[in-house]
């Protein structure tokens, strides 16, 4: 594919693909989980990542530079914002059995509220575009390709988290209960699964993972109230590539989206002079094409045990 792409650019873009793709995967898995377990397309999901990033930033600014503590703070804040939005907004609406569009609107409203609370806070304390203050060390340098200690951090962490999440879903009792909910809520209730508790745990889990993703993101770029919102469509595109139901499909989808946003656009730019300004259009086009022509996403291509039945 990268015939005319200079090797150094190609390598850099591939490294970016892995890095960004892993973060997308962490967030997109949350969207797939909320959609299959809760039947809710949550457009506020990326805001949990922003909230997590800010938690990490504030902890690091307070002088605590232990990465583990930072990640835990991000997880807790992400998880809590997700749980609160469920308890305060989505649960009462679901109980009234409202339409899908009401849920979509509500999730936009939740996103708006979280985003602008963060904006107000960032504005007040002057927390725009700061990096999480873990010192940067260069581990490897080859032309334009620079691998820092952060890369060594971000990619393994996200991969390990994705792996743990997959294990949790497939092997743990909680995972089994989530899958039961995804298949048929009423049936799950009849056979004695504590539906509400499982839902709460699901929210904590997806919010926490998004929070960690946000913190990992904040390690390599700057933290800004718009960072989550800016990624939401890419993340949705990944989940939609997973048919909004398949776990493995979502992970693959995340890397496909990241690959198109980093490598494919570069290839088009070098070979056909496509302006890089069109980069944001890529996930949009992926969504439209998939929904119109392949609504099941990549699921049929990779039928695996990790899929949540629908």
């Amino acid at each position, binding site marked *: 594919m990268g015939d005319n792409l200079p090797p150094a650019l190609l390598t850099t873009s591939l490294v970016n693909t892995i890095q960004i793709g892993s973060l997308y995967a962490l967030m997109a898995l949350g969207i797939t989980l909320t959609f299959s377990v809760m039947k809710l*397309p949550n457009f506020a999901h990326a805001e949990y990542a922003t909230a997590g990033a800010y938690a990490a930033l504030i902890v690091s600014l307070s002088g605590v530079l232990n990465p583990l503590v930072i990640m835990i703070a991000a997880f807790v804040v992400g998880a809590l914002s997700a749980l609160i939005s469920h308890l305060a*907004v989505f649960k*009462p*609406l679901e109980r*009234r059995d*409202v339409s*899908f*569009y*009401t849920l*979509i*609107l*509500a999730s*936009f*409203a*939740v*996103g*708006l*509220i979280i*985003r*602008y*609370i963060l*904006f*107000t806070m960032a*504005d*007040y304390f002057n927390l725009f575009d700061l990096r999480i203050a873990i010192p940067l060390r260069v581990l490897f340098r080859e032309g334009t390709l620079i691998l820092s200690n952060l890369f060594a951090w971000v990619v393994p962490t996200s991969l390990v988290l994705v792996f743990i999440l997959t294990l949790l879903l497939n092997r743990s009792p909680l995972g089994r209960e989530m899958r039961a909910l995804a298949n048929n809520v009423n049936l799950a209730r009849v056979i004695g699964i504590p539906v509400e508790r499982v839902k709460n745990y699901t929210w904590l889990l997806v919010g926490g993972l998004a929070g960690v993703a946000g913190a990992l993101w904040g390690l390599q770029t700057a933290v800004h109230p718009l960072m989550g919102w800016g990624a939401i*469509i890419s993340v*949705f595109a990944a989940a939609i590539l997973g048919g909004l139901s398949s776990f493995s499909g979502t992970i693959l989808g995340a890397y496909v989206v990241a690959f198109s946003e980093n490598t494919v656009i570069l290839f088009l730019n070098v070979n056909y002079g496509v*302006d890089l*300004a*069109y980069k*944001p*259009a890529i996930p*949009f*086009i992926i*969504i*439209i094409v998939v*929904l*119109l022509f392949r*609504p099941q996403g990549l699921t049929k291509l990779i039928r695996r045990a990790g899929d949540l039945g629908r």
Partner: protein
Amino acid sequence: MINIDIGATAISILTLFGIYSLMSISLNLEYGVAGLPNFGKALFISIGAYTAGITYTRLLPLLAGVEAIHPCGPTMGGALQLRSEIMASNPTAGFINFGLTLLFAAAIAGAVGFAVSYVTLRLKEEWFLALVLLVGGETVRILVRGADDFICSHNGISGVAQPFFFVADPRSRALLFMLLSLALALLAYLYSQRLNHSPFGRMLKGLRENEEVTRGLGKNISLARAQIMAVGSLIAAIGGVLFALNTGFVNTNDFVVNLTLDVWVMVVLGGIGNNRGALLGALLIAIMDRFAQIGAIVLNMGGSDIEFNYVRFIGFGLILLWMLRYRPAGLLPESRLTTDAHDVVRRVIGASK
């Protein structure tokens, strides 16, 4: 303290009210009456604004009999000056240009709405339509922004003057534009009100309540969907033209998802399926918008560090959530549909007694 010019504030609120009404009525026709979740409202509004951007830079000079200057890049200033001169000195060209802008915007948006409706027929699940429209609107925005020569990408086009620009007194100028936007909103309201109580409205409400049954009763629902999307889109585009003329700018940054959400809030607030509700929602948001601006100024002058614009969005989200949870039918719930035929039957029964 700052002085608030009550007259000017009222004029600007009513102008906004007219513009927002066009948008909320169009969404109410699509979602409230026919049940089509148009989350791509910003796209159809933007078609109107982009059309204005093009007519003002390419068509207006032609109508005035002068050669057009390329609006972007180094000749940008000259082109802007040319536009302003024509709008100030040649009202005829200005009005013809305005009329043609409305015509083109309506035609293009109507055609796009019609086509989009047919393309999206193949979607597997109903709510995918919401997603495709949402995402489609953003895609078009990015593509337009990327195309340098179209409406000057990031810079946008300024000096898109309203047709009464030639009037010297700023107050009367604003007043005339307010009347124009209110008149267009009134037309849209009357049209949608009559549509609501016609056999077409009845069919659309049938479509909203049960698509399968409506098809089974011999209605071409694909066509009906496309027709109402066309009507809704052309009204939204007219709103878009006025929106651009009101601010004087055409810039892709104005047509983001937040604009779509604004329109949804108007309809949810006012009452889904009720045209009067759509008007009420538009009025409330227009007032809120204006006072948010005033509030921001007051707050900043008072030395507060809190950016009022952010607070506005939080308030917006809270209002939306509150309405969805506690008043899902809106402030003015939909009244039940009774078409003219009821009078006929009442008379028949009365005569037979």
